């Protein structure tokens, strides 16, 4: 019996999306195959990784990752520059966490001022994330989207309850949009359909299937993503073809595995390595399931993930 390569015939393809402006702009998506299967299709762009920063000192991040940013994290502008210049980030994801009513309830105008300062000091693409508070995000993302006009940012996250307004401002100011739904193929599809029905250009959508960390629901995200990707490729389903974004840092760095001291749990081994591998392994899971853009925190975990991506290409 002779071996013949078992190829699948796909008729669909993931949209290619450009982020940022100028020579530091990046492209993601565009593949016509499952991740890294070069024998049956193209994967023109490697998955990119954005480093997460926020507008408050990261007091609730575990030490392993907090200490890396010790010198810069009290100043989001310096923090962003550090990610670009020292860590050679592909992109930065600025989370406006302080705008949440339970945090500082920062006013949209103040958030916008910070966004414009950050945009002034760095030239890599910026992802601007709200605090995931449905109502507050409407006001905050509207104002910051206007401020960031012309920078081809990614604005997020639009959820079912607030997608109309957020999509409208993203469109008016020519940004890309993250549409997040709750770990369900049909919900993800439905939200994308709602967006296109209101006139949002579908090639500007990025789908966030809702991430989860290794050991805490990773398998749900993994399978939802595999199913979305198969629908995009096999059924040529336009509503399933946006690139996939996984916002993993915030899920990973709250798990006990990234926090508990070795003295407390000797059977879990060294805390430093454990935290880093927890984020890198989660990232590996997401890229195998089809992620095009990851939002991560620890530089060492990012470096490992990039090395893995290189080896997979």
């Amino acid at each position: 019996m002779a071996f013949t390569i078992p190829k699948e015939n796909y008729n669909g393809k993931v949209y290619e999306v450009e982020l940022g402006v100028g020579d530091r702009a990046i492209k993601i998506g565009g593949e016509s195959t499952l991740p890294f299967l070069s024998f049956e299709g193209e994967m023109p762009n490697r998955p990119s990784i954005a480093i997460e920063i926020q507008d408050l000192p990261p007091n609730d991040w575990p030490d392993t990752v907090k200490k890396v940013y010790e010198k810069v994290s009290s100043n989001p502008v310096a923090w962003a520059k550090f990610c670009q210049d020292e860590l050679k980030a592909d992109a930065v994801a600025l989370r406006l966490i302080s705008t949440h009513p339970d945090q500082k309830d920062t006013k949209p105008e103040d958030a916008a001022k910070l966004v414009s300062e950050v945009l002034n000091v760095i030239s890599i693409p910026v992802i601007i994330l709200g605090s995931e508070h449905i109502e507050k995000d409407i006001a905050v993302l509207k104002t910051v989207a206007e401020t960031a006009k012309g920078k081809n940012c990614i604005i997020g996250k639009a959820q079912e309850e607030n997608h109309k307004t957020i999509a409208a401002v993203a469109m008016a100011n020519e940004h890309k949009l993250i549409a997040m739904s709750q770990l369900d193929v049909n919900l993800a599809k439905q939200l994308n359909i709602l967006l296109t029905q209101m006139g949002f250009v579908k090639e500007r959508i990025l789908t966030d299937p809702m991430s989860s960390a290794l050991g805490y629901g990773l398998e749900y995200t993994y399978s939802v993503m595999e199913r979305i990707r198969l629908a995009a490729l096999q059924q040529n389903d336009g509503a399933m073809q946006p690139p996939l974004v996984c916002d993993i840092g915030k899920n990973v760095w709250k798990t006990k595995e990234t926090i508990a001291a070795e003295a407390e749990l000797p059977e879990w081994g060294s805390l430093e390595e454990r935290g880093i591998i927890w984020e890198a392994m989660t990232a590996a899971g997401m890229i195998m399931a089809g992620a095009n853009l990851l939002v991560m925190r620890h530089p060492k975990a990012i470096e490992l993930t990039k090395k893995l991506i290189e080896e997979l290409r």
Partner: protein
Amino acid sequence: MALSGVEIFKHLPKTNCKKCGFPTCLAFAMKLAAKGVSIDACPDISEEAKKLLGEASAPPIRLITIGAGDKAVKVGEEVVLFRHDKKFFNPCGFAVAIKDTESSDEIKKKIEAVKTSEIDRVGQKLRVEMIAVTDAANDPAKFASVVKNVVDSAPGVPLILHSMNPSVIEAGLALCADKRPLIYAATNENAEAMAKLAKDKKCPLAIYANGLDALTSLSEKVKGLGVEDIVLDSGARKAKDMLEHFTMIRRSAVKKSFKPFGYPVIAFANRDDSMMEALIAGIGVMKYASIIVLSSIEKWKMLSLLTLRQNIYTDPQVPMQVEQKIYKVGEATDKSPVIVTTNFSLTYFIVRGEIENSKVPCWLAILDVEGLSVLTAWAAGKFSPAKIAAFVKESGIEKTVSHKEVIIPGYVAVLSGSLEEKLGEGWKVVVGPREANALPAFLKSRGA
């Protein structure tokens, strides 16, 4: 190729005698096609038909057992490419490689690491299952002495005997053949000698070839030499080759019934950088490796790999869950607090673990919400005040404790008023912290 029910039906006696427990032969055939019953349930089927159908209904990837006794590892028998299509059945086995040139100190440490590798996660005991003794000295006596060392100091741990030299393997086998080690590996050059050893000693045999064409012919050759239990190695060592080869092998077996690839796959993940090695092994876990050989097994590394394996191999249709009941944690008495949460295994074991950490004995009331987490169950209407109240009342906890107070998870604080109402006169609902890791401080501060 899997046969349809109708095709199977053609080969059955067609008497509808019902001895198989089904009303008709056709019904039996349908069940057989869905792999929900064994062909042996029909006593009247001809030997000829049985052989034919047996082959057709055999799983596309052969089940291989490595080792003997209760620590034996079973791999293979997978039927899908994506876990959401059904599930992945037999979790891949991890092995740590021990070279016969390593110092006795290093060897001792690795054996110890294997023996103490077990962790308890979400109620399952997970560990590094195997040891691969690797020939680096090309000296049968040296190899045998390390095999002996391992057999003696890690009894029951399944072995992989790794050498391309049949006389080295033979020396190792002399000490452990009855323990069914995996022989690694037959190549085009040594196939006859290795196949003979595997057959004589009734051990599974891994085959190594460079690339999938060569692997196909070697697989057929070894099978032709009478070996049934085969494990495949296509020489893939880079992440890209692993992913592509393993995908092609699994697809060929599952979708094309390509017999030469109807066996489990072995992956070698060794890297100088242990973190990188972990990620490479992770690719193997997700993408179809059945055995993964590592060069080191630090605890942090295995925690991540064993957790990934557990995630990938859980049943996507049925979340892991525990029984609905009131669990006694520690030496709980009539004064001990009553804590309510859901029966999702992950939730239960996290909360239980933190209660144990607190050293405050408690009653843990676990409500059946079909295995959903607290917020998911709440959002799905399954962790509702009415359901919690009914369960607390029916559980009989009122007779066990002398107080009327329950503690609920912080994430569902909104339930408290309505729950108090539903529980009725005298009941008090206390809102706990959101994250379970704040439970010890919370419980201690209440001075229970």
